[in-house]
């Protein structure tokens, strides 16, 4: 479904991602792991259009998407969450989630001004769907809350709900369990498993090794911007290069 070939990204003198290649099968859950600074978020940003590759290619369902703007990738069924939370704090929780359905609604400025977009049931249906998804991801108690009054953990889930509104074909989760306690992490783990079971392809970046090992079908390991290893959780667990890379960064909270 997704194939990354020889992807490289440099910022001035710093090469964040160098010659990375891997592929993601449809309907699987794939994790990208590596020590801090390995280039994982940069990789995500490249695939989701936030950055433009310096060289290499990204092919999604047969089309080259390297350098394509994020708003156009959304149309192809690519959704994502962010490592450092990108929530519109000036909006209510449910409004944030409803923006996820943007592409399915009439978003013309003139139509909006004339009040044409609230006629018919689409707006209502979208609102109800947003509430359902908020309940599904576990922040149902915040349906009538303002985004700025919600705790960190709930906001992380809100982002997932927003990403799910568009019924994506592939979902990129950037550190969904970061900053969460054990219970919350376990809930996220179950959530991801359920997403995978429903047929959505999931790619996640994550530091919590237990979660990664439990939930992933395949794992790609990055270190210093290069791919270090690729394989099933069992293969990765015993890979000596991976172990060595992590021993060097053991204090970074595994």
């Amino acid at each position: 479904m997704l194939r990354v070939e020889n992807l490289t990204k440099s910022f001035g003198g710093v090469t964040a991602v160098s010659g990375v290649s891997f592929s993601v099968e449809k309907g699987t859950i794939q994790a990208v792991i590596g020590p801090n600074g390995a280039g994982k978020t940069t990789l995500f940003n490249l695939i989701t259009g936030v950055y433009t590759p310096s060289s290499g290619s990204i092919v999604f369902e047969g089309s080259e998407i390297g350098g394509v703007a994020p708003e156009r990738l959304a149309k192809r069924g690519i959704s994502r969450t962010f490592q450092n939370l990108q929530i519109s704090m000036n909006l209510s929780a449910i409004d944030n989630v409803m923006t996820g359905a943007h592409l399915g609604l009439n978003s013309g400025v003139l139509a909006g001004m004339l009040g044409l977009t609230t006629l018919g049931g689409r707006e209502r249906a979208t609102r109800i769907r947003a509430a359902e998804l908020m309940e599904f991801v576990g922040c149902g108690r915040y349906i009538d809350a303002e985004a700025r009054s919600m705790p960190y953990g709930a906001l992380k889930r809100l982002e997932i709900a927003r990403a799910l509104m568009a019924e994506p074909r592939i979902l990129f989760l950037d550190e969904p369990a970061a900053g969460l306690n054990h219970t919350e992490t376990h809930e996220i783990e179950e959530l991801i498993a359920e997403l995978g079971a429903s047929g959505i392809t999931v790619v996640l970046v994550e530091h919590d090794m237990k979660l990664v090992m439990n939930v992933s079908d395949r794992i790609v390991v990055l270190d210093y911007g290069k791919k270090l290893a690729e394989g099933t959780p069992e293969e990765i667990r015993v890979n000596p290069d991976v172990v060595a890379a992590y021993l060097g960064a053991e204090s970074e909270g595994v």
Partner: protein
Amino acid sequence: MSQFLQLFFSGTTVGATYALAALGFSMIYNASGVINFAQGEFIMLGGMVAAVLSAAGVSLPLAILAAVVVVTLVGLLIEKLAIEPARDADITSIIIITIGVAMIVRGAVEVTLGKASHALPHFSGEKPIAIGGATLLPQSLWVMAVTTLVVVALALFFGRTRMGKGILATAHNRLAAQLVGVDVKKVLLASFGLAAALGAVGGILIAPIATTSYDAGLMLGLKGFVAATFGGLGSGVGAIAGGVLLGLIETMTAGYVSSAYKDAVPFVLVLVVLVVRPRGLFGLGSTDRV
């Protein structure tokens, strides 16, 4: 050729004023990311206070000194009262606050000193000096000399003194600077004071040639901002280069193309710069981390 030389002299003279204004902008921008729309008022205030004191009989050197001190105090006051309380507000709010502060200063001057223009006596007489077919006012020499001195002094300040290095460090990385013990609040305060002093000096230097009135600050400030953007916001070298170049381009345009549109030049220039190379001649680019 003599016309070119004439234009070159006036261009460099006014450019030096822009350079000082631009330095003031860059300094505050560096310390806090704030664009101080009140910078022009510091320039105006310097010239006005000196002119009023001098007209009241105070000796010129004393009047100048007093003016610089007063304006510096005003700058410090503004930082304490208007900028510090709004530390966490977003860019739009802070820009608007500085616009509001500028209005207060301008209004206060209008009320206390009236709308008339004031002139400061030339520092060393008005007899023009003839060079290569063009005339140069002695005041112009003062402008260029003092500006050069100020620039050198600033370079020493930032390169050698503890406070100066602290300001630079804060500009590069606020958190890191705090961690090594730099008092960031004091840095911001000092930056405002310094920027005010710079503006005042610029205003005083140019006041004999250009006369000054309560609304002179707006245009001067805006052009100083343009110069800073042109040279690269946050870069000291850029501010000076931008200021002098802007003065030259403006004067040359007035001389060779059309004097009516002289004031439009800086703004056309800034639009071109913002489109082609937003970070200016010497500025550093920045990327947002997502």
